[in-house]
């Protein structure tokens, strides 16, 4: 079967002309690095960096049934009481409680919402929303806005200041996990105080035709252009899970350690299964580990051993620029998941000693 041609974001020409190294990711030709993963990660932890995340799926959900539809598919509480201008992280579960995707829902007013899905799952999420719209929530309208709106994550301790300078953002008015409808570069835009790096910052969703000018203006204001390599290292340090690696439809939110993003008392798709997992406990749970020394890095699918017995698999693993050692995540039997437990990881035949640690690996000082 021939590979489908790669899609591009509206910023593709900017990445290429600025010298980024491009790789295929979730069907898109995306920048994996600009100056280098370590320099970019450092920029985000100490100043500010920008990431093109326009490949993610952006779907408008509008109309009298919009809120109820989102409330049904999302584990966060998209209830009547969800304030306007709020962004809420949560999971989309199938009927068995398996995680279809993780997604943020943004509320603009009574009947206008947006949901942002992972690029790799965008088609699946849209189809899932459409299925429930057709079955139970006919007075909701779904609009794929992925092409008309771009998305730039501006992250780091200088992120909100740069957003103020370049995009008129008011960090005192828009607190973390809030969103504002505004104008950027003379066109309508959304600015959400969210991200995927463990740093403060914003995700700007400008009209596509202004995205290139905004990217350049953010660079001129001091934000370092960054690629997917740094994004992955930073999100792992912050123990932010990656769907498709750290969770998928074979695990439920309880096993994935995401109970705090589930309103268990509510009725949502998969709620019975998720409630049962919460009440009965799960045999395995996602845990984090770090290696004693730098050494070869544990990577996804390497085996985890406790006292020589194979007990699980690494789901994400990488060198951590912040800790200057290797870190990773994996599903372990609950009894082997306590911080302090010594484990080893089989890295190409070598047993690399490591220890279970509390998550996240990195937490910014406030």
């Amino acid at each position, binding site marked *: 079967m021939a590979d489908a041609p790669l899609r591009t974001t509206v910023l593709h020409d900017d990445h290429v002309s600025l010298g980024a190294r491009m790789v295929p990711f979730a069907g898109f030709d995306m920048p994996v*690095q600009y100056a280098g*993963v*370590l320099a970019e990660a450092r920029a985000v932890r100490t100043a500010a960096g920008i990431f093109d995340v326009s490949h993610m799926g952006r779907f408008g959900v509008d109309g009298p049934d919009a809120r109820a539809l989102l409330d049904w598919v999302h584990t966060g509480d998209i209830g009547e009481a969800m304030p306007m201008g709020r962004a809420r992280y949560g999971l989309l579960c199938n009927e068995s409680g398996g995680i279809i995707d993780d997604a943020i829902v943004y509320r603009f007013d009574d009947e206008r919402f947006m949901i942002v899905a992972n690029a790799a799952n965008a088609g699946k999420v849209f189809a899932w929303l459409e299925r429930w719209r057709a079955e139970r929530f006919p007075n909701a309208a779904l609009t794929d806005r992925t092409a008309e709106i771009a998305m730039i994550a501006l992250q780091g301790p200088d992120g909100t200041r740069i957003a103020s300078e370049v995009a008129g953002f008011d960090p005192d008015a828009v607190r973390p996990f809030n969103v504002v409808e505004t104008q950027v570069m003379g066109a309508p835009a959304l600015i959400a105080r969210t991200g995927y790096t463990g740093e403060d910052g914003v995700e700007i969703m400008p009209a596509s035709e202004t995205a290139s000018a905004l990217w350049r203006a953010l660079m001129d204001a001091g934000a370092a252009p960054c690629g997917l390599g740094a994004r992955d*290292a930073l999100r792992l340090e912050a123990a932010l899970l990656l769907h498709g690696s750290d969770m998928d439809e074979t695990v439920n939110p309880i096993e994935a350690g995401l109970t705090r993003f589930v309103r268990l008392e509510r009725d949502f798709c998969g709620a019975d299964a998720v409630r049962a997992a919460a009440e009965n406990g799960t045999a395995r749970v996602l845990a984090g580990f770090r290696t004693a020394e730098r050494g070869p890095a544990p990577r996804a699918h390497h085996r985890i051993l406790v006292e020589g017995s194979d007990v699980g698999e690494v789901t994400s693993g990488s*060198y951590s620029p912040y800790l200057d050692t290797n870190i990773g995540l994996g599903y372990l039997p609950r009894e082997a998941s306590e911080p302090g437990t010594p484990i080893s990881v089989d890295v190409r035949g070598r047993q690399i000693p490591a220890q279970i640690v509390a998550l996240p690996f990195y937490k910014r000082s406030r």
Partner: protein
Amino acid sequence: MPVPEDRRYSKEHEWALPEPDGLVLIGITDFAQHELGDVVYVDLPQPGDRVTQNAQMGEVESVKAVSELFSPISGEVTAVNDEVKNAPELLNESPHEKGWLIRVKPDDPAELDSLLDAAAYTALTE
């Protein structure tokens, strides 16, 4: 960074620099370090180990991926660059000099002639 004229190159992007005493210094090229990205770990043979031309002699790992290192010549390892093991970023900063990997006593110095010269290596990477 220009490709130095004083050494030979393998198609696997290692270089081999003959030294006046007959030993050969081995490293990876600037092209290779650029392709790898930030190197965070290097696994090398020990002094006394044997390496074989075109066979794996170690591995080099960047933030994103691991790559095998292949020896450009056969011989016995006489020295290992401990500095690069402790500070793998030397491979990115100075691949042709401070980032050398191992020193080898070659079995057959004529093996160097089977490698590419600077012009041929430059052509390979263009």
